[in-house]
């Protein structure tokens, strides 16, 4: 069984540019989560999809961030325009529907974003 796949693994962009991060969850996992770790800080929740619907987006920092999950499969996280403070590692995680209740998430390796 393939794990959670994230692309790109590392992206370097200039302030003001746009970046789109992609996440392919484990097949059959209805729950998809985005988390972010800013350098030196803790990993923080951004949002949660159940299939194609946003269940909880309370962690999204501002309206420069847009997350979508087309057809309940893969998800994208777009940052437009990027700011310096957006630099960090963006983690995607997935779980089966009920496994979300028990916190058993499968994480990808993360996409490192560097904004210059």
């Amino acid at each position, binding site marked *: 069984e393939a*794990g*959670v796949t994230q692309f790109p693994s590392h992206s370097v962009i200039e302030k003001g540019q746009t970046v789109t991060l992609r996440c392919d969850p484990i097949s059959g996992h209805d*729950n998809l*989560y985005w*988390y972010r770790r800013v350098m030196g*800080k*803790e*990993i*923080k*929740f951004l949002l*949660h999809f159940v299939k194609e619907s946003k*269940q*909880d987006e309370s*962690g999204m920092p501002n309206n420069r961030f847009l997350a979508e999950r087309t057809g309940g499969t893969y998800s994208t996280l777009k940052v437009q325009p990027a700011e310096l403070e957006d630099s960090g590692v963006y*983690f995607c*995680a997935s*779980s089966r529907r009920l*496994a*979300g*209740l*028990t*916190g*058993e*998430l*499968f*994480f*990808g*390796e*993360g996409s490192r974003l560097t904004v210059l």
Partner: protein
Amino acid sequence: AQSVTQLDSQVPVFEEAPVELRCNYSSSVSVYLFWYVQYPNQGLQLLLKYLSGSTLVKGINGFEAEFNKSQTSFHLRKPSVHISDTAEYFCAVMTGTSYGKLTFGQGTILTVHP
């Protein structure tokens, strides 16, 4: 709201020595507790979890943790570490209605020396 504090940012130990990674949490409601581990160039993976029942929980790779409600702690232990245990360890909490919304600590980097 919940918060998690991992008391050590880095823990160096020698191979075959015991190790304890400390975690304290704060919450106004009951929480579930977790330890996740991130090995180099890999994603986070669940090491162990406490949902209810016995306060001593065992996880993968010989790790165990004890939930102490009065001290609001969930320390991770292993009696004898291996080089392969070198990784970053994250303590996390989640409420019963959070559906995968984990609150993480800052992480502890465990380095095992030969």
